[in-house]
């Protein structure tokens, strides 16, 4: 099974240096793009390959690039921004790529920047990722010394600077328009759309925001071609993806697997199944802001539409496992506390609805809940649903809650009717 994204990640070395990276064909994709292809052609390749964004929303990457205005009368300054703000609880994929193989990302950036003819790219890196910052900074120096960055990349007419920006921490910075405000040195509240960043983004200029993992796919598409890339997957979605599992599984971890790999395979084979003494109660398939699924959904493949059909989202593809000795109500409380704390405070339902959600859950757990509180919680999940809030943070926050109310209702009720000692709390 081919693992293009992680092929350079080897247990015997801290990270892949430029030499390591190039020894397995690194920067060939970039050479091909810049020397052989027109920007529009690069866009087309990536579109044809079927790469969909790995940041959570799954938008076609090539299509996104092709929407950037590039005619002669369009703004001449354009930006590429890398979303390396990974902060969704339960997600630990981008950190690996950043720490272990920074050149893969840099090559992806160069190709993407070339495709939209951006001469400046910003890596918006989560502030806590110190090791990644160090290694990226080092790799950027290496790349620059090789002429891959700066004026006239590979002696072409294309020039590119990459700036590493480290954030000061806030989950909402991962939302692409909030991220742009953060980059501009402002409070990271999301922006109204339209205008989309593709039209008016960073400092009002056309801007593409892409996830780290998304960009890491790009060099391989250019190097090995569209058909090869499509052949990697087991489903309509293309390529491979970093899937992970955390919680009480035997071997929590992260694996590069074909798109479409079943959840069962990930949890039972790669993660080794549940730890002894624990049973699988459910799981969040793609991070904290996805709906719970149940063991009955184990055979669903990790592909965007299939998971949506099962009632959840692929999200970041990093599974959080709920075992039978962890109280789902308390787990949801933990999640909602996270979201309430990370709300930017701009729109009412999120700013004031999440803290109320937390209060209700706390009351329920403390034995002070009432049955109508469950209706209130359900009401809040509708209230904070998609389209009702300014950005997708609050709807994301409601996904685990609404599904927990559906699947684990008796756990909530037991607290309320006074049998909370029966709940298997760890």
């Amino acid at each position: 099974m081919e693992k293009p994204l992680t092929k350079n990640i080897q247990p015997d070395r801290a990270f892949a240096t430029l030499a390591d990276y190039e020894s397995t064909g690194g920067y060939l994709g970039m050479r091909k793009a810049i020397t052989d292809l027109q920007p529009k052609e690069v866009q087309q390749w990536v579109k044809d390959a079927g790469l969909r964004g790995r940041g959570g929303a799954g938008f076609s990457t090539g299509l996104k690039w092709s929407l950037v205005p590039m005619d002669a009368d369009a703004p001449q300054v354009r930006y590429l921004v890398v979303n390396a703000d990974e902060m969704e609880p339960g997600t630990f994929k981008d950190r690996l790529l950043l720490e272990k193989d920074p050149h893969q990302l840099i090559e992806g950036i160069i190709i993407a920047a070339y495709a939209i003819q951006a001469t400046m790219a910003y890596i918006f890196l989560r502030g806590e990722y110190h090791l990644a910052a160090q290694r990226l900074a080092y790799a950027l120096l290496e790349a620059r010394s090789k002429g891959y960055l700066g004026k006239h990349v590979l002696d072409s007419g294309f020039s590119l600077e990459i700036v590493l920006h480290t954030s000061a921490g806030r989950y909402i910075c991962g939302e692409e328009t909030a991220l742009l405000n953060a980059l501009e040195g402002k409070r990271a509240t999301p922006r109204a759309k339209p205008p989309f960043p593709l039209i008016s983004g960073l400092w009002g200029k056309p801007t593409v925001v892409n996830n780290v993992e998304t960009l890491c796919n790009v060099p391989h598409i250019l190097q090995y071609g569209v058909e090869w890339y499509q052949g990697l997957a087991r489903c309509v979605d293309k390529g491979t993806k970093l899937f992970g599992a955390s919680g009480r599984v035997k071997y929590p971890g992260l694996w590069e697997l074909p798109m479409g790999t079943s959840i069962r395979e990930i949890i039972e084979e790669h993660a080794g199944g549940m730890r002894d003494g624990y049973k699988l109660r459910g799981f969040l398939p793609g991070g904290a802001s996805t709906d719970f699924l149940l063991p009955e959904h184990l055979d669903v493949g990790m592909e965007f539409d299939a998971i949506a059909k099962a009632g959840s989202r692929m999200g970041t593809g990093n599974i959080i496992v709920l075992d039978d000795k962890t109280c789902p109500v308390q787990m949801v409380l933990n999640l909602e506390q996270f979201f309430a704390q990370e709300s930017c405070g701009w729109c009412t339902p999120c700013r004031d609805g999440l803290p109320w959600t937390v209060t209700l859950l706390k009351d329920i757990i403390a034995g002070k809940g009432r049955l109508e509180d469950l209706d209130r919680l359900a009401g809040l999940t509708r209230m904070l649903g998609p389209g009702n809030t300014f950005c997708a943070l609050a709807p994301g926050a409601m996904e685990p809650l609404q599904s927990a109310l559906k699947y684990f209702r008796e756990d909530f009720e037991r607290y309320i009717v006074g049998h909370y000692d029966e709940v298997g709390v760890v």
Partner: protein
Amino acid sequence: MARIEIDGRFYDVQDNTNVLSTCLSLGMDLPYFCWHPAMGSVGACRQCAVIQYKDAEDTRGRLVMACMTPVMNDMRLSISSEQARRFRSDNIELLMTNHPHDCPVCEEGGECHLQDMTVMTGHTFRRYRGSKRTHNNQNLGPFINHEMNRCIACYRCVRFYNDYAGGHDLQVLGVHNNVYFGRFEDGTLENEFSGNLVEVCPTGVFTDKTFSAHYARKWDLQTAPSICVHCGLGCNTAPGERYGELRRIINRYHGAVNGYFLCDRGRFGYGFVNSSKRILKPRIDNQPIIAIETAESHFRKLLNAAKSTIGIGSPRASLEANFALRELVGEENFFLGLNDTEHTLLNTIIDLMRHGGIHSPSLREIEQADAVLILGEDVTHSAPRLALSIRQALRNASFAMAQTMHIPLWQDAAIRQLRGNVQSPLFIASICATRLDDVATNTYHGSPENVARLGFAIAHCLDDSTPAPFALSTSEQSLASSIASRLKQAKRPLVVSGTSCSCLAVIQAAYNIAKAIPSKDKQLTFTVPECNSVGLTIMGGKRLQQAFERIDNGLTDNVIILENDLYRRASHKAVDLFLETAAHVSVIDSLENKTTEKAQLLLPAATFAESEGTLVNNEGRAQRYFPVYPATEAARGSWQWLTSVMEDPHWQHHDALTSACATTLPGLATLIQSASVTEDAIAGSKIPRQPHRYSGRTAMHANIKVSEPGPAHDLETPFAFSMEGATTHAPPALLPVIWAPGWNSNQAINKFQEEISGHLRDGDTGIRLIEASGELPWFDDIPTAFEPEPGLWRITPLPNIFGSEELSQQSPSIRERQPLVCILLNPMDAETLAVGTGDPIEIREFAGATTLTIHAQIEHTLPRGLVGVTTGLPEFQSLQAWTQITLKKANPELQDLSEVPL
């Protein structure tokens, strides 16, 4: 235009706006918080949710925020669907989880948008059982209270304060449900428009501190439509009274002038009305007398006994009062009460407005300008509300850009973030730094002569048939040509000038520029110092100097001075001499001042709050103000004092005086339209000044008299000093209180506009007296460049919003914001004098004998050879503007000089 369907009914509406604005324009009730008619949409509060259906078949629809949804042809919407209603009431419930429910002790109570919207959504039952987060409040200075616990985080305050008004020191701090709207630390809000927070905030976070000090509920205030008397712009206000005391001022919407906003001078300057300096009883030789009749007969006696009587009018008195005086003493004995410089400047301005052929814009029109040049003014200080309009004009470049990107103009945040650095050009040539410099494309600082010279140079660059100044520096030359080229490119360029730097050449240069600009839609506006400067000047009359001469010659022995402190106009020596030489001096005024001290007969004048009159603003718009409450004790309108001693009884009525004014004076002929406001508007029943919930009427004077006193009669206006009457037939411009069912806050205004932010239904207040026509020749009297003479300086008055204006100066809250009493010096001048900021300095008038010791302050942008002082401060009254002085470092031992009486 678009045809849309709302809840099954069809409407033809404008398609350049959003659904919320459209629904409100159609008279529907839809709650909102973060949206504001002047500030557009940002979609933060999520309160205005409605359902939008895809097509005719769609039955479920989708929840959308009305404020963020563009109106499109054939769109189908529902406001009343259960889903939308539920969402709106749940949303308010969320907003209220941390709200303290302290309405009984909240100054916003009864005019609270949050209260209104809560009731509107039907959220009446509290389900939240958690605790509430609390905040500490800040001391924000003399104007504004801060009660953060009431905050619902609509973000309007910071959007107004920063985005709209250009402030910086009020920001949103913190995050998630702990957002806090305040300053970095306790301290006075710096922006000159901070008072609007009181109205912009939909709840009681920001309230009027001066009002709190003598608070009454909105429904207990007696109110009448009024006009601000504190500068020449004529903003519309709604003052409120209770128990014979003026309690506060709020904005009164005007579609062409002030829109939704006032400046802080206009809002908080009212304190003078309640001041202890008020003259409430007539005085004869400084002895108070009780009976009006005694005063009246004394006044008549003086008139009859006089050889001849002259009258000195006033730019802060109404047209009617000035006209009455003119009629009383006769045209040949009527003097405008302006000093020579003011007289000349104002005459020139009026001449240019009438015959210069260039449109004199309203503030609303100014907001449409796409390039602005300010010549010789710091408008924030000389005509404050104008500065706010100029800030909005600068956005036109980004609006133009947004249009090319198909971003609707009401998408406020989107347009502001798109802006980058796109801004319409603003050029400011002034004496020193101004409060609009932060948004200026280029600034120039120089003496008035040099500002004028730059102006003439700009005009010359625009049209080389205009005269050019010689010996201009190359930097001035290139600045002039770059300004000229930006003005030339503009579609709707605006030139702003005025009287602040007392320089005729500056005004003339401004005209040359405006005339030379090729665009047909160019505009020229002038600031004027006082609320009726323009009206008085149109009326016409002699100069103050000529009055002095009349007394000096002994031709006249009796003087009547109308609302005018002559010591603010001319040198102390001259005024002293004038007042001492005249055999009899009668003064009509409302506040004690140096002139009233000298009066043999002092007649107490009602202020704007207790009388009626017409004022003409700088645009040439005549506007009427009405008494809010009857004058107490023996005060009455100046016009009443004057007409009381006239023979013709017809003029006992104000309307008659107005029409006489219109028929007598050709410049005021159009005023005839407003003369019969009383008869036309009321058609039988009067408009009540007291709202229908006015309380305590039968009891409020019970401690004095148990029987309920009858309401005072008002024979002069369409209003009654009572709750009786009807408002239904009154044009919105005459409504004392803006109120509609369910809308108790000032946001109710949307029920009275033709469309959101448009004109009031049945028209805005006022009549434009002047429309541009004709053309005047180029001015060619170009001054030579100013060269400082070693050892000599020139006194340079610099207006200040807080302190320069005579009446607001007496308001305690304004006084707290008054600038330091000091003189400003160029750093190099300070160096030659060996003084630094804070050092005392001795001023000696070059010609005269006046000396004064005062602190120095370094002002980097002030040209050498000038000494800046705040216009109009009593401390500087003994110094004649623009005179030459010498300076000397004074004994630093002297402490607290500014306190020493001068």
